[in-house]
């Protein structure tokens, strides 16, 4: 394989893994709660700002500037966004589901869309419009192969993504709570009958989505900076990925993310970089023409 193509493939896979992390939270919430969370991009943004606040010395706590190591800031940022996710579930989404209204999913979409705008404009007014960069996870450029160097932070983000994707898959498929989540995703009424607390599953799903989005936002903050609308494009890619992978399929989302990363990377140089963000939609249309339920989605009947 030509070295130049190899370099593009490596970058594509790395970017795909980063996409996967963003898409995972979306797919978890969708599969469990049937909510298309339009504010997921802002959860991502909050992860970045949380890391910045904890590590860059921009925030003082009792007159002492907070300058934690980024590696310590990462889990704290994840937890902060997870807590925010729980608050959103408790304060905004649960009332919709417990109000016995028709079409709660549609109300939830409008709610999350409103939340997205609120958070974006809130960040603009409170934190300001300018780009911020928290400290680095892995400083400098790293030699990959031949003449290919990539940023240490980008590599760290990709490596951590692999770990977090693995941990999420283990949690979903290998633990009782994960199986209960899957059961809730498949049949909410049936799950209730067998004793699963579906409200608790909703909380777990939102917390998990917050953890993953917070991780993505914090990990990518040193790579792509943090600013109020930083989550806009990633969340659109996330939607493409979950549809491409098969709505609700976690493994499908991971595979779709890597495919998308590769297509964008190779398409940018072999077709045109001007249409980089269009490739995602071309792939989506192509796959849906032949597999309307996505790569690993299952034809299912809702109960």
């Amino acid at each position, binding site marked *: 394989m030509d*070295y*130049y193509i190899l*370099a*593009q493939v490596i*970058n*594509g896979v790395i*970017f795909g893994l980063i996409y996967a992390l963003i898409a995972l939270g979306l797919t978890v919430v969708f599969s469990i709660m049937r909510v298309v969370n339009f504010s997921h991009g802002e959860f991502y943004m909050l992860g970045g700002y949380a890391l910045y606040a904890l590590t860059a010395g*921009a*925030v*003082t*706590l*009792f*007159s002492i500037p907070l300058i934690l190591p980024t590696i310590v800031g990462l889990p704290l940022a994840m937890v902060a966004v997870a807590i925010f996710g729980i608050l959103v579930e408790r304060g905004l989404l649960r009332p919709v589901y417990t109000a016995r209204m028709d079409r709660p999913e549609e109300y939830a979409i409008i709610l999350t869309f409103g939340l997205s705008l609120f958070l*974006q*404009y809130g960040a*603009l*007014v*409170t*934190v*300001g*419009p*300018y*780009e*911020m*960069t928290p400290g680095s996870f892995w400083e400098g*450029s790293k030699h990959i192969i031949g*003449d*290919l*160097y*990539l*940023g240490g932070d*980008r590599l760290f983000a990709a490596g951590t993504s692999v770990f977090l994707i693995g941990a999420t898959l283990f949690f979903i498929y290998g633990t009782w709570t994960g199986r209960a989540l899957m059961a809730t995703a498949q049949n909410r009424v049936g799950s209730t009958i067998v004793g699963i607390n579906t409200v608790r599953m909703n909380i777990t799903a939102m917390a998990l989505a917050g953890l993953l989005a917070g991780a993505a936002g914090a990990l990518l903050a040193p*790579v*792509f*900076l943090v*600013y*109020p*609308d*930083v989550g*806009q*494009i*990633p969340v659109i890619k996330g939607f493409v990925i979950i549809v491409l992978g098969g709505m609700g399929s976690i493994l499908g989302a991971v595979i779709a993310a890597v495919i998308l990363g590769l297509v*964008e*990377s*190779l398409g*940018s*140089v072999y077709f*045109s*970089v*001007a*249409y*980089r*963000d269009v490739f995602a939609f071309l792939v989506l249309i192509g796959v849906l023409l032949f597999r309307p339920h996505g790569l690993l989605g299952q034809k299912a009947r809702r109960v």
Partner: protein
Amino acid sequence: MIEIRHKKLLSQFALVAALSLSVSATQAGETIKIGGMAPLSSPGSYQQGPELVLGLEWAVADFNAAGGVLGKQIELIVYDTQGRPPTGATVVEKLITQDKVVAAAGEYHSSVCKAEIEVFHQHGIPFVIGSCWSDSLTKAGYDEVFRTSVYSSKLAENMVAVMAANGIKKAASLVEDTDYGIGIAKNIESAIKKLNADIDFQYEVVEKTSKDFVPILLKYKTQVKPEVLIVAVTQPGGFLILKQAHEIRFAPSRETLYLDGTCTAQNDKVFWEAVKDAGKYVLMSCPYSPSVKLTDLGEKIKERYVSQFDRQPNYLPLQGYDAMLSLLTAINNAGSTDSKAIIKALKALKVTGTRGDIEFSQEDGVWHHQWKAVPTFIFQYTEVGQSAGDAAVLFPKQFATAGIVRP
């Protein structure tokens, strides 16, 4: 007890965000209404819009403090155009038909300006462009449209002149998918022909909202191998390109210089916060130099900015101030708020702005109603964290303090 440090910066934004509503110059009584437009929210360059609006506001405040215009206070009505051409056109229609402004100034994105000038032209209302650089705006030849900001072909000629003077034979560019971005690439091509420079130039158009530019940068690094990479992508895209070019060890490097064609690097504190050590050796093409003495008015504006924000201004508040100053002076000179009288006064205008003596050319083409002598500079940061005022001036020759430094 949590306290955020960026208070000054924030208060600036909060102030300007509030201007989506109207800024009333007086509590009561008759006023002269002037419109202002700028991107204040996504997907527009909301980092730049508030800086431009600040200049518009300060000019209005100074006129009002000195007794207003034609004995009346000025009421500035600013709207957010979000960087969207349809929003720009709608906002201008509203300013003219509902708010009844007699003239307007401002705007940052060329593509938005392009939509806006059509509405101004249709209604015959004068408009002084704040900071849209595309040549096509003045080339349209509309009687109502004037420009105090720099224009793309002038910047392109400067960049080509610097490249030719430094023996650069191969240049590549990444430009954003807007009128400004594509315009500057085409202007560089034209300037190479016009100046008969022996430079092999190619460019690629990128989506300014993209996050990963590594694929195209890898292509440039391994296959094109330019001696200079010219980037005409506004922030945050421009900052990301610089970070990523640095990460893959492409530019700035001994082999490949990096030239920021948007001048976003001039906002030094923001620039260094975002790009850290990737910014060392970056060249930038700008319509203002903090190290070159401004007019007395310009120095006062600069001092006011530094005392308020604790950092050097970039070119935008100055361009905003100059646009509004020209407009209000023309209304004063016209002795009337009639559109035709204001346009006539703008054509005959001679006023000392923040960066020099402003007058509008009556020639055709890109110079139609353009301030031809608008200053432009090329600088280079040679140290990490360097202030824009300490950056080496490379162009024009009479102000040059150094030659290009390579890593």
